């Protein structure tokens, strides 16, 4: 199988404009970022592409810019860069926590946020964090630029609302409202380097009357796509934190997710653990969710 690697073509663009031109080729080339997923597929013989465009090192797609309202991650921002960034550590701890649990250090040094999005695995660890943080994905092609709310990105299992000639150029993340609590929890076979059985990111804020005024609950590995549990969010929106409100959210969550049995886990386990993770988040966010 490995011999096949020697027959693959790699185009090396000078800059983004050059890359966008290459992406228009009839062969529909596959863009390469850190290659941490792609080389696994190529070695296993499960990726059929023969033409590649190497984006690694393109300056226009690199770096992290922290502004007043939010941050812009270049598509090639690595998970190491994300977890080490001082502003992100302070303002987007859920994303930083996710970045710190993607594979081991070796993976974090190569894997990029744009690659995690494009790979579109329902178990992608950064994806629930991006979704809970209301990220917007920036896309470019020779035809122009557009942005897409993260929530509109996945149409189905590994089915991205991105055209073959488009590249992900970056991700914009607004800072959540002041006073909101962020949470990230990954459940896998071991603490590091495992593919998630359940992965969740949450953001929760209260108004002056200490009722829930902002809530985002985003999940991976419990459905064909990364998704927000809208029924569970509705059960919490406007509610005064209490054990009853937490129970209602947990019940509603069951109708939001559709976990499957697979090699890593099974439906019942994932449903139970997702509920437990939700309770853990709510209790951490406000102790009144726990008080009896």
């Amino acid at each position, binding site marked *: 199988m490995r011999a096949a*690697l020697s027959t693959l073509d790699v185009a*090396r663009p000078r800059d983004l404009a050059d890359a966008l031109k290459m992406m228009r080729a009839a062969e529909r080339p596959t863009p390469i970022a850190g290659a941490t997923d792609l*080389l*696994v597929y190529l*070695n296993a013989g499960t990726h059929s592409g023969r033409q590649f465009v190497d984006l690694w090192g393109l300056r226009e797609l690199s770096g992290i810019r922290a502004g007043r309202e939010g941050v812009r991650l270049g598509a090639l921002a690595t998970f190491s860069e994300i977890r080490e960034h001082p502003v992100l550590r302070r303002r987007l701890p859920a994303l930083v926590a996710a970045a710190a649990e993607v594979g*081991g*250090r*070796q993976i974090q*040094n190569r894997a990029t946020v744009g690659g995690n999005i494009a790979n579109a695995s329902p178990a992608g660890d950064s994806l629930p964090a991006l979704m809970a943080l209301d990220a917007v994905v920036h896309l470019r092609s020779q035809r122009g630029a557009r942005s897409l709310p993260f929530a509109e990105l996945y149409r189905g299992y590994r089915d991205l609302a991105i055209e073959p000639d488009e590249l992900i150029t970056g991700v914009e993340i607004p800072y959540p409202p002041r006073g909101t609590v962020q949470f990230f929890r990954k459940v896998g076979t071991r*603490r590091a380097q495992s593919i998630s059985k359940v992965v969740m990111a949450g953001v929760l804020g209260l108004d002056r009357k200490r009722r829930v005024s902002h809530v985002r609950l985003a999940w991976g590995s419990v459905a064909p796509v990364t998704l927000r549990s809208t029924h569970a969010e509705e059960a919490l929106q406007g509610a005064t934190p209490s054990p009853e409100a937490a129970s209602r959210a947990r019940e509603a969550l069951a109708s939001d997710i559709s976990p499957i049995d697979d090699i890593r886990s099974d439906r019942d386990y994932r449903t139970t653990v997702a509920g437990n993770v939700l309770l853990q988040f709510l209790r951490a966010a406000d102790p009144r969710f726990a008080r009896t």
Partner: protein
Amino acid sequence: MSGRATLSFTVNGKRRRVSVPPMKRLLDVLREECRLPGTKEGCGEGECGACTVLIDGRTVNSCLVPAVQADGATILTVEGLARGPKLTALQQAFVEMGGAQCGICTPGILLSAHELLRRKRGKVPSDPEVREALAGNLCRCTGYQKIVDAVRAAAKSKR
């Protein structure tokens, strides 16, 4: 670029030029073209860390790096740690404390630990910090404790 790509990079302080298929794994380029077989292949899919090397000061799984992306890079493999017969403090600690048994994970673990010690800039990492830094390196012999002890001992000896 099709067929072969001419790439140049620095490995263990030496400039190298190779002509290889662009998607050839860096692991294979190091072992075959550069004749540096210290870097081992374990799983070949980024799980075990046996093939860990440093690119521009950061650990990577060399089984998941296309050769073309190493063009212009500075690479450190296990062969580049010791100076001639003189082992580094880290290698010496592994020898003395039983940090290596069968040895196949050892080159990768040394490089992950090397990166950690450089990141800590002379501070001794805690036990959990060592475990976190080595989370991407699997060892089926030692049970890890002796590896963790060796890394911390090396950090202490360097102070």
